[in-house]
């Protein structure tokens, strides 16, 4: 980047001692125009990059739809949606859980993974017990293995209600 000549320096300053009528030469206007254009582009460029940076940040700090990461405590549905003496499977972390509303209205929740060979258990309303269809494993409503091959009880979870909402959390 060589230095400008004194002539051009003067021209920039608006003076031109050697020029016919002290006016800057034509080239000067072009340089001025180019500079203005470059500045304009630069401003736009910075602006666009700034937006590209601040837009994601703005979206980031906006609370997402699902408010919490709650994995140790899961909402398992509404009380009114679960009939008496019935059960349903729900997602607890990455594993299935079974939520049971007993005939007396009590809510219980267990891991739905059978302790024998990992099949998913189900609730049998007629017998009021939890049953595994794979090899006829049976658990009572305390989660204890009372029949068939399962060697261990089902892990029990803690159930609370927040108004209508059923909240299941690890014991």
């Amino acid at each position, binding site marked *: 980047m060589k230095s400008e000549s004194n002539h051009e320096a003067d021209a920039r300053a608006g003076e031109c001692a050697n020029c016919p009528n002290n006016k800057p030469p034509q080239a000067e206007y072009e340089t001025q125009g180019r500079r203005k254009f470059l500045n304009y582009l630069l401003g736009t460029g910075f602006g666009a990059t700034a937006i590209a*940076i601040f837009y*994601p*940040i703005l*979206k*980031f700090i906006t609370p997402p739809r*699902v408010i919490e*990461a709650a*994995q140790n405590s899961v909402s398992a549905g509404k009380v009114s949606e679960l009939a008496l003496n019935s059960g349903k499977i729900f997602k607890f972390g990455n594993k299935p859980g079974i939520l049971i509303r007993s005939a007396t209205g009590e809510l219980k929740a267990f891991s739905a993974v059978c302790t024998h060979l990992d099949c998913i258990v189900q609730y049998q309303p007629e017998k009021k017990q939890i049953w595994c269809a794979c090899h006829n494993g049976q658990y009572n409503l305390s989660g204890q293995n009372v029949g068939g091959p399962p060697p261990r009880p089902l892990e029990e979870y803690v159930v609370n209600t927040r108004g209508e909402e059923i909240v299941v959390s690890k014991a």
Partner: protein
Amino acid sequence: MKTENITLWLDDRLGLSAIAHLARKKEIPIHRHSIWYYFGGMTLFLFSVQVGTGILLLLYYRPSAETAFESVQFIVTEVQFGWLIRSVHSWSANLMIATLFIHMFSVYFMRSYRRPREVTWLSGVLLLLLAVGFGFSGYLLPWNKLAFFATKVGTEIAGVVPVVGRPMLRFLRGGEDVTGATLTRFFGFHVAVLPAITTLIIGIHLALVQKHGMSVPASLEGKDLKKMKFIPGFFLRDLIGWVLAIGVLAALAAIFPWELGEKADAFASAPTGIRPEWYFLFMFQTLKLIPAKVLSFDGEVLGILAFTVGGLLLFIVPFLDDPAKPRRRTLFTVIGVIVVLYIVVLTIVGYVG
């Protein structure tokens, strides 16, 4: 015009014109090795990226063993652009340490630590330590299997140091083992303790750099060199680098997103092939190569002591080197080259072996 009025108003209250004057006066000498001058600023830029993305992550992260992993999973899946912020944070950490190493070695080989810049060097080595501390503490925060075991092994190594080792280990871990207490403690270090100290030391480092100006290699001292103004020339060039760095970070985040892994399980056995982050790898690899017993001493302890001594020597390099003695100069250059080669080779071995 409006801007001029505002500037005058601010200047009256804040004395900005004095700072502006200093900034305008600052000049950068141009010579064959000027390219290395960019790396300090790049490290600083990447550090501010860390601070920015770190603060954003703080809005959603939860520092307990039961919730940390899930909260990071949440950030990466549910929060808008969470994947971007998190990956940028992780990648930028690594890039920052890389540029920090380059900056340090370029200063070393150019001998910029010569009088009167010794304290600048000292503050720089402290910053290296702080950066590595940031890296080590931050790595645990997602609470995944890899991080858990890396922390376990890392603190175990710290505990091997004689006398102070075990108290240090208990201090770091918040107990005897790596537990949720360790996580909370590391979180405290990472977002409060280290940033506070680092801000202070960076302040000192930058102030000293402004005070002494940019150093030139000894062979060029006194010569009449071309100078570039910091504003606008050098600064705009800096800016080009920083803009490109943003591009690199965005590309890394989108093409090589940082892994989440599996949640840590204190009772599971260590996964095969665990190793620390690349900036620890050469030390880790060295410890693996040292035989279990050297003479009658424990090999691991010797290795750690050797590195500690090495670190101390690095710290006091300005006082060991004597630029006036050419033999000393050559010795230090050779040592430096050997160290760089050692680090590079062992890091590669650590990955490939």
